[in-house]
């Protein structure tokens, strides 16, 4: 469901997936070399003066500083089956909209504004044809975002819950994102290292981000926006193959701009799916398999448990007792020690897990005292 929250002078659209940014690639042969900012056409060469030996040659990058954001562009050589073609690469961002429209994200309806910005900031000349530009540009590194109003108390629960997110095969690493200055959130992988198998996913406070990192932008264009408790979920689609894995036919700009909110949301769901916690059913199967002890260990485990109950011992004390009464040789005693250590983990996981997680210490102590487990 789409919820529109009205503020005095404008609307912020919440709970609607939209495009925040992407990189576009367009062949120079389509737009014409003469129609791009000339600085990107030159290379910088580092060489040894005495010998004229070239050490390094790199393409110039264009950076246009605007109020609260920058435009980046450069030219790269694309090699397709031996055919080298120059392409202009531009990083586009919803900030180009320079208004509260920023929250709408980049759409096919507001793309003319973005295109005009490129002309106004002289990245492109006004001779570039809009329709041709749309038709021949391709997209990578697409960021899909969705904004929510989530109070801190609930955001804390969300953050904590995502710590438990991991797939059965354990693919996800779970670094906790902390954008500094109190911007806590969660993050899976990062933009640089992400792949279609381990995609980038991030949740953070848009309110804090706009009041710190993007303060100039906020002050210039969003001064009358109520940003209280505004959170953002962001996912990234890397490349054509990644788009196709979501059923998107290709990565042309035309196709991407025509993706509906629903389709963009589906992409977000599928990326979340990579990191969502394993289901109860899966967990049950996994637990059954992983906790199955071999018959020798099971026997030792039972003996230890009975000793604990009859003599009011802790697991550690019962293990020491087992080592003392066992008459095996050095090798056998070492094997028993190893088994006991393994069983100690098993016991802790099995016997204390639920109570340590969910029950107060005083009550837990009472129970374990009753059963003579401590």
């Amino acid at each position, binding site marked *: 469901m789409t919820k529109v929250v009205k503020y005095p002078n404008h609307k912020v659209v919440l709970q609607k997936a939209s495009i925040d940014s992407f990189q576009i690639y367009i062949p120079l042969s389509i737009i014409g070399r003469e129609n791009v900012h000339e600085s990107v056409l030159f290379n910088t060469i580092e060489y040894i003066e005495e010998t004229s030996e070239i050490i390094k040659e790199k393409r110039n990058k264009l950076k246009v500083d605007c109020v609260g954001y920058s435009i980046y562009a450069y030219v790269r050589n694309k090699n397709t089956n031996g055919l080298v073609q120059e392409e202009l690469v531009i990083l586009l961002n919803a900030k180009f909209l320079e208004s509260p429209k920023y929250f709408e994200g980049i759409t096919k309806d507001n793309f003319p504004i973005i295109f005009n910005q490129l002309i106004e900031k002289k990245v492109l000349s006004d001779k570039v044809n809009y329709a041709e530009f749309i038709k021949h540009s391709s997209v990578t590194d697409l960021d899909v975002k969705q904004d929510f109003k989530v109070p801190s108390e*609930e955001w804390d629960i969300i953050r904590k819950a995502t710590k438990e997110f991991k797939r059965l095969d354990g693919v996800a690493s779970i670094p906790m994102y902390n954008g500094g200055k109190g911007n806590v959130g969660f993050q899976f992988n990062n933009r640089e290292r992400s792949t279609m198998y381990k995609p980038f996913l991030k949740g953070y406070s848009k309110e804090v981000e706009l009041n710190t990192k993007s303060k100039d932008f906020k002050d210039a264009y969003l001064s009358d926006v109520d940003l209280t408790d505004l959170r953002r979920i962001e996912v990234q689609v890397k490349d054509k193959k990644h788009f196709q894995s979501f059923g998107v036919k290709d990565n042309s700009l035309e196709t991407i701009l025509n993706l509906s909110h629903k389709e963009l949301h589906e992409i977000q769901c599928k990326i979340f799916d990579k990191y969502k916690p394993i289901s109860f059913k899966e967990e049950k199967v996994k637990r059954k398999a992983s906790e199955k002890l071999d018959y020798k260990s099971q026997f030792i485990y039972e003996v230890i448990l009975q000793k604990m109950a009859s003599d009011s011992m802790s697991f550690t004390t019962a293990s020491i007792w087992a080592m003392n009464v066992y008459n095996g040789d050095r090798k056998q005693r070492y094997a028993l020690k190893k088994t006991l250590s393994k069983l100690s983990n098993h016991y802790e996981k099995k016997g204390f897990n639920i109570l340590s997680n969910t029950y107060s210490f005083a009550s837990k102590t009472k129970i374990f005292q009753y059963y003579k487990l401590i």
Partner: protein
Amino acid sequence: MKRQLQLSEVIYDSIYSMDSKEMKDFILNGLKENSCSYKRFKEIVELQFVGASGELSETKLNALNSKLDRVFECEIKGTKEYQKYQNVNAFFNQFKVQF
């Protein structure tokens, strides 16, 4: 005769014997510690009875669930405290993620 000890039984008894105030605290602590919905919390409880320490009978599990449900319905469900968990649940549901 020495009492046979099964951890699953110990855990079951310790939960089942709680009075409603203790059980309310048990559920609320569980939701907080595990950052999960009540549905997920019950699954976590059930998972304690899976594995090598002896599985709990279906009858006992149902009895435990009924008692937990009763306390949840009467003491927790409509409270402001639980509302935030419902909101978080709605948030994750949008992304088809179980909370």
